[in-house]
């Protein structure tokens, strides 16, 4: 049957927070200096919730996840903060205590399922092992449960496939095995770090459907870390947007996609080509590059690329503040004001070459003459509101 992917994320009851991350700082101490990969990150994850953490490479989304599980590789370490799992601080636990929680209460799946599986052991053995390690599942139930899990993640012919080795599985099937393994101890939280990035789009759709079903049927909370905004829109109930190690915006999926308040979120959504677009529109690219995390710019980290920056943005880093019901953004301006006073609706330099950096940028004359209507008169702070290189 053709299936309509139900809005499961919306229908799962959401309970108390199972995970609270408070003022997390994680840095890598390299020969070149301290790379502040995660700076002052705080968020809650409720029971049964699906939370997306999105951002581009180097924004700190994966390091945040690794920090939760105590898996930050050297020369990195958590510098400050609290990570409370049901009220217990994971950062103050010793190694053995953390090992108990990892895999049993909080499981993680990674982008590359091949390097996460041991090539010399059978698939079934590896799933069994995950359960034996925590003694949560009675030994007698382990083998039948491995088989059940493989069926649940829809590995065809599971009874035969438990005896296969990882190389006998395709990429999509390996990711299903990783999910089965992650679920083996009935964790409360599943952290999925780019789980579909290495997979083809038809396989990606199957894996996302699987994660949706698991969230609905088992109530497992899911943290989905991805660069793909489409994937987030389909699976998550709430979204955190990260840029240069910080949370720049947080809100419900509808808020983030319908009325983003941080210019980075806004610009990112407008830079995506959509397969369902009805006509060809020039993409609005974000000029420039993400900052160097060893020496980030003062003030707001996005200010050198932001079309709406003020003087203050270059000096002071904006705090994450409430901008709507459950929506927070770290911006001195916010898109509401950018639309009302800075003519955000008209900032689309469509001259050939402008957005690709071929030509010098700046608002062209014909656009400047269009602004009065939407810009509400003379309030536009010139020339700072101009896009630039």
């Amino acid at each position, binding site marked *: 049957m053709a299936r309509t992917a139900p809005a499961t994320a919306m229908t799962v009851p959401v309970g108390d927070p199972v995970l609270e991350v408070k003022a997390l700082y994680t840095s890598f101490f390299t020969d070149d200096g301290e790379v502040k990969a995660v700076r002052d990150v705080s968020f809650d994850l409720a029971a049964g919730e699906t939370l997306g953490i999105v951002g581009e490479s180097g924004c700190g989304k994966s390091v945040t996840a690794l920090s939760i599980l105590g898996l930050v590789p050297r020369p990195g370490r958590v510098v400050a903060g609290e990570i409370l799992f049901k009220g217990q601080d994971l950062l103050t636990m010793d190694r053995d205590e953390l090992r108990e929680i990892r895999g049993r209460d909080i499981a993680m799946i990674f982008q590359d399922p091949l390097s996460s599986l041991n090539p010399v052991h059978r698939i079934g053995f590896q799933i069994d092992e995950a359960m034996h390690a925590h003694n949560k599942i009675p030994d007698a139930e382990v083998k039948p449960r491995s088989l059940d899990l493989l069926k649940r993640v829809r590995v065809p012919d599971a009874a035969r496939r438990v005896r296969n080795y990882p190389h006998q599985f395709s990429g999509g099937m390996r990711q299903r095995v990783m999910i089965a393994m992650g679920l083996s101890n009935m964790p409360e939280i599943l952290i999925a770090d780019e789980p579909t990035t290495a997979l083809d789009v038809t396989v990606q759709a199957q894996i996302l459907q699987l994660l949706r079903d698991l969230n609905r049927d088992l109530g497992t909370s899911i943290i989905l870390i991805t*660069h793909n905004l*489409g994937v987030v829109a389909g699976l998550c109930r709430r979204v955190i947007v990260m840029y240069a190690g910080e949370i720049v915006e947080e809100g419900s999926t509808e808020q983030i996609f319908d009325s983003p308040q941080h210019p980075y979120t806004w610009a990112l959504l407008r830079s995506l080509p959509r397969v*369902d677009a009805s006509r060809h529109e020039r993409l609005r690219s974000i000029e420039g590059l993400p900052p160097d995390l060893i020496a980030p710019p003062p003030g707001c980290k996005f200010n050198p690329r932001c079309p709406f920056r003020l003087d203050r943005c270059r000096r002071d880093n904006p705090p994450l503040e409430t901008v709507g019901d459950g929506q927070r953004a770290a911006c001195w301006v916010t898109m509401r004001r950018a639309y009302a006073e800075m003519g955000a609706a008209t900032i689309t330099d469509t001259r050939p070459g402008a957005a690709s950096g071929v030509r010098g940028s700046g608002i062209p004359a014909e656009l400047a003459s269009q602004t009065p209507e939407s810009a509400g008169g003379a309030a536009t702070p010139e020339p700072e509101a101009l896009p630039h290189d």
Partner: protein
Amino acid sequence: MTSALSTGQPIGTRPPGGAEPLLRAVDVVKHFQVGVGAIVKAVDGVNFEVREGETVGLVGESGCGKSTLGRVLTQLIPATSGQVIFEGVDLVKLRGEKLRQHRKQLQMIFQDPFASLDPRMTVGDIIAEPLTNFGMIRGRAKDARVQELLRVVGLNPYFNNRYPHEFSGGQRQRIGVARALALSPKLIVCDEPVSALDVSIQAQIINLLEDLQKEFNLTYLFIAHDLSVVRHISQRVLVMYLGKIVEIAPSDELYSVQQHPYTKALLSAIPIPDPRVERMRRLVELSGEIPSPLNPPSGCHFHPRCPIARAPGICSETEPALEGKAPGRQAACHFSDEVMTQVGRPVAKEA
């Protein structure tokens, strides 16, 4: 500045078709011998045209043969059989110096901007290498040309003495574009040019490619697995599955009407950055995964995964031809009428 670079003519002003296409692939086949007696049919009889000034997108999942096809068209690897007719000349028959001279017109941009630039060469030398190879210009004129090319792709012209490691992924991809433009080619095969880049950088490179096309009247064959990107940049889209083209359609029409069940499934699987659209999504689930090109299924290659296949029957016995079913469109399916009329509601098997 050489003349071909400046004779840019806006695209879209001339009627498509009419004259001989810039590139025509006729029954192009590329088989690889692997081990004893085993043959991978990477490209298995492909026919299509690329008209001057247009962008043709080539889309498909990993292993469908799209990159191999791109390499055969540019003659980076020889075709097993078939013809690649470029400006009226069959490149497959050419060898040595004659082929080399034709290749000037056919350049390529690669996926990985880290692997496709020699780390020991300066950016200036990388961009000048094609000019040097063809002995076109030297000395001051060459330096001036390199600087002009850097400017054209949006880089500082005085970066010519720097090395690739000093640049970010997006900037390296711009260097790759400058190198491809050096010989003023007519056709550029772009093989996944943005898939290694971050989202905010992807749009910069896509816009750059569009601007250059207008300025220099370039023709692109744009190969990518991301149908959103392909649909955006192309006028026509070719969909490939297991070594064959299964559908050709104008990109404006592709999302609304599909004539091949694989295209339909592929489109239904693409995540759209809009929670409302996502909630209404009807996923056409395909059973299983792409079969091995070592031993492709009989009849229609897609039939074991096809939700509407008559198998055993015509679909498992007879290979459907790629035929015109509507103006500007072709599909290789025995039941394309059926696919077309099921508006967004194909009968899909449970995986």
